[in-house]
C-alpha cells in the first residue's frame, strides 16, 4: 500500500479524531467538501460535528481555537492556503504565542498551513511562512519533508502544550509517496541526517529537502559527498545536529524556500557561526527564494525558488571556496 504526503496528513487527523476527544477541525470548506486539497476527506462524515466549515474569518478562526485550547480542547485549524494566515497574524503572534507566558495557562492547538508554490499559484497562494512565525517566541513551527514526518509530526503536534504552526508543503501533497505509515519517529525538535556525506553540510527542510537531495546526487557524479540535514522544525532548530555535521564537513550551505532577508537560513548561519566558527573551512552560504513576491508564470516561478540546479551551483561555489 502506498500513501501520499497529503493522505498521511488526513490519516493523522483521522487518528487524532478517533483517539482524542479533545480534537476537532475548523476551517473553510473542511466539512462535507473535505477541504480545498482534500486533507479532511470524509472526516466530517466519520466524526460528525467535529469537522466544521468556518466562515471566511481567519482572525476569528484562530481566536476561537485559542479560546477552545485554553479550555482544554485541541483544535486543528486549517488555513485554506498558508498565505491567508496573514489575516490571523495578530491572533497567532500576540494572543496564542504569548498566552502561556503571560498567564501560565497553555494554549495548545495546531494551525495547518498549506505552504509553498506550484506553477501558476502566484504571489498569494504560494508562500512559505516558517520564517515569519519562527521569529516569535511562544510558537513551535514544524516543516515536515517526508510522508512519515507529515504523519508523526502532526500527531505529535497534537500532544504538545503549545501553539504549533504546521507548515505542510503543497508541492509534496501528491508527488511524495511512502510505503506505509510509521509507528515511531524522531521527536519534534530533532533534525535528521537525511544523507551522510563528508565534503559539505547542506541544511534544509520541507520541499527543499528533495531539491537538495537531487543536488547532492548530482554532485556525487562530480566526486563530492554532500551531507544533507533535514531540519524538520524551524522552531526549535536542532543546532547540535548541524554543528556535529559541520564538524565533520567544514562547510555549510543552508537552503530555504521563504524570502531571503532574515529567516530560517540566516538564523542557522548566524548560530553556526557563533557556536561553530572554527569548524568552518569556508564562508557559510545561504540560498533562498528570490527577493520578490512569488511569480505566477512557470518560467519565473522556477527561477524564483531554489531548485536542484541552483542548489548544485551554490554547492559548487561552496566547495570551491
Amino acid at each position, binding site marked *: 500500500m502506498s500513501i501520499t504526503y497529503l493522505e498521511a496528513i488526513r490519516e493523522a487527523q483521522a487518528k487524532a479524531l478517533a483517539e482524542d476527544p479533545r480534537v476537532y477541525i475548523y476551517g473553510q470548506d473542511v466539512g462535507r467538501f473535505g477541504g480545498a486539497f482534500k486533507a479532511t476527506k470524509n472526516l466530517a462524515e466519520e466524526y460528525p460535528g467535529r469537522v466544521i466549515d468556518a466562515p471566511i474569518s481567519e482572525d476569528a478562526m484562530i481566536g476561537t481555537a485559542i479560546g477552545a485550547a485554553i479550555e482544554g480542547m485541541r483544535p486543528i485549524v486549517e488555513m485554506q492556503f498558508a498565505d491567508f494566515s496573514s489575516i490571523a497574524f495578530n491572533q497567532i503572534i500576540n494572543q496564542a504565542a504569548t498566552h502561556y507566558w503571560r498567564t501560565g495557562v497553555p494554549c495548545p492547538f495546531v494551525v495547518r498551513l498549506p505552504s509553498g508554490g506550484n506553477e501558476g499559484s502566484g504571489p*498569494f497562494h504560494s508562500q512559505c511562512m516558517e520564517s515569519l512565525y519562527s521569529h516569535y517566541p511562544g510558537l513551535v513551527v514544524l516543516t515536515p519533508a517526508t510522508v512519515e514526518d507529515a504523519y508523526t509530526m502532526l500527531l505529535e503536534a497534537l500532544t504538545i502544550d503549545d501553539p504549533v504552526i504546521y507548515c505542510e508543503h503543497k508541492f509534496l501533497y501528491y508527488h511524495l509517496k511512502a510505503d506505509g505509515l510509521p509507528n515511531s519517529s524522531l521527536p519534534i525538535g530533532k533534525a535528521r541526517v537525511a544523507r551522510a556525506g563528508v565534503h559539505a553540510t547542506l541544511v534544509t527542510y520541507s520541499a527543499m529537502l528533495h531539491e537538495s537531495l537531487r543536488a547532492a546526487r548530482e554532485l556525487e557524479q562530480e566526486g563530492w559527498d554532500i551531507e544533507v540535514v533535514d531540519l524538520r522544525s524551524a522552531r526549535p532548530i536542532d543546532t547540535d545536529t548541524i554543528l556535529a555535521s559541520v564538524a565533520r564537513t567544514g562547510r555549510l550551505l543552508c537552503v530555504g524556500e521563504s524570502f531571503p532577508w532574515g529567516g530560517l537560513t540566516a538564523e542557522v548561519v548566524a548560530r553556526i557561526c557563533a557556536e561553530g566558527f572554527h569548524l568552518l573551512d569556508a564562508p557559510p552560504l545561504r540560498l533562498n527564494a528570490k527577493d520578490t513576491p512569488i511569480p*505566477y508564470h512557470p518560467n*519565473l516561478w522556477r527561477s524564483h525558488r531554489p531548485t536542484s540546479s541552483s542548489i548544485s551551483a551554490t554547492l559548487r561555489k561552496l566547495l570551491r571556496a
Partner: protein
Amino acid sequence: MATRTAEAAAQDRTPVGGGNQEEGTPIPFQERYLKAYRSSILARQLEEKLASLYRAGKIVGGVYMGRGQESFSASLASCLDRERHDIFGPLIRDMAGRLAFGEPLLDAPRTYFGSAEGPMHGRDGNVHRGRPREGMPAMISHLGSMISVVCGMLLARKFRGQAGAVGASCIGDGGTSTGACHEALNLAGVEKLPLVLAVANNHYAYSTPCSRQYACGDLVERAAGYGFTGHSVDGTDLAACLEVFDRAVGAARAGEGPQMVVGSLLRLSGHGEHDDSSYITQEDRDAPYGRDCLRVARAQLLEKGWASESELERWDHEITDEVDAAIATAQKESGPDPLKESWHALATERLNEGFYDE
C-alpha cells in the same frame, strides 16, 4: 437607510440617466442595457474558452468563472463613467464588469497565459489583474482587502477636488465575513465616501453555503450598521440590476453617501474549473436566483423589441470571433524571460538589495 426590495426596484424600471444626471448627456437606458448585455456575452464566451484551455492544460493555476453573475457585474460597471474618474474594483467573478468598464479584451487572456505583454507581465495571473492608473485596482487574493483600496482612491479624488467620482467595489457572500470588509465599509461610512459596494450573493463561498457564512436574513441588513443605503436586487435580472445600480451610483455621485447593493444569484460553475460544484443543491439550482441571467436578458431583449432572434445570434457570432482573435493573440505571445527579470521588488532602484548577484 430604507431597503428597497427587488419588486420595488422593478416597478419603476424607467430609463434614467443615473450616473450622468448632472453633467454630460444621460446615456439612454437602452444603450446602457445593450452595453451590459454585450459585455456579459463577451465575458461568458471568453471564460468558456479559458475554461476549455485550462482543461486542455494550456493554462496553469486555475480558471475562475463569473457564469451566472454577468448581468449583475456588467450593470454595475455600465453605470460607471471613466470620464468622471469613476473606479471599478472587481473581484473573482467580474469579467463582465471589467469588460463593461473598459478593460481591454486582451488583458484577461494575457494574464491567464502569463504573457509578458499583459498588464501583469506574467508576474501575477488569472483574476489578479488590473490597471490601477486607469481606475481598476489589481485585486490581491485576500478577500475583503480591496474595498479599502477603493476607499483610498476615492479619498485621493476628494483631496484633488475631483468631486462626483464614484468608486465601486465588489464582494461575495463569503467575503463579507472578513474583517477587512468590515473595516473598509465602516471607514467609508465615516468618511461619507461615494462608494458603491456590490455584494454578489451567489449562495456559496467555494463549497460553503450561506448558512455557514452569516446569520442574518439578508446581507442587506448590514447596510444600516455602516450608514450605507441598502438595495436588494434579483441579480439574474439585467433590467432590474441596471436600474438599481443606476440609482445607487447616482445617489453616491450626488453626495448621498455610500451604497450597498445586494444581488441574489447563483454561481453557475465550480469555484474554479477544477471544482465540479456537486455540492450545489438542486433546490438552489431550481430557485429563482438559480436562473441563467443571460437567458433572462435575451428574453427581455426580445420582449422589449430591442433585438430580434437573428440579431442576438449575429452578436454571439461576432463575439465568438472577437474572443477567438484575442485568445489567439495572447497565446502566441511569449512569457517573461527569467534571465531578463530584474528580480527587484522596489520601484526605487538604488534601494533594491542584490541577494544573488554574482
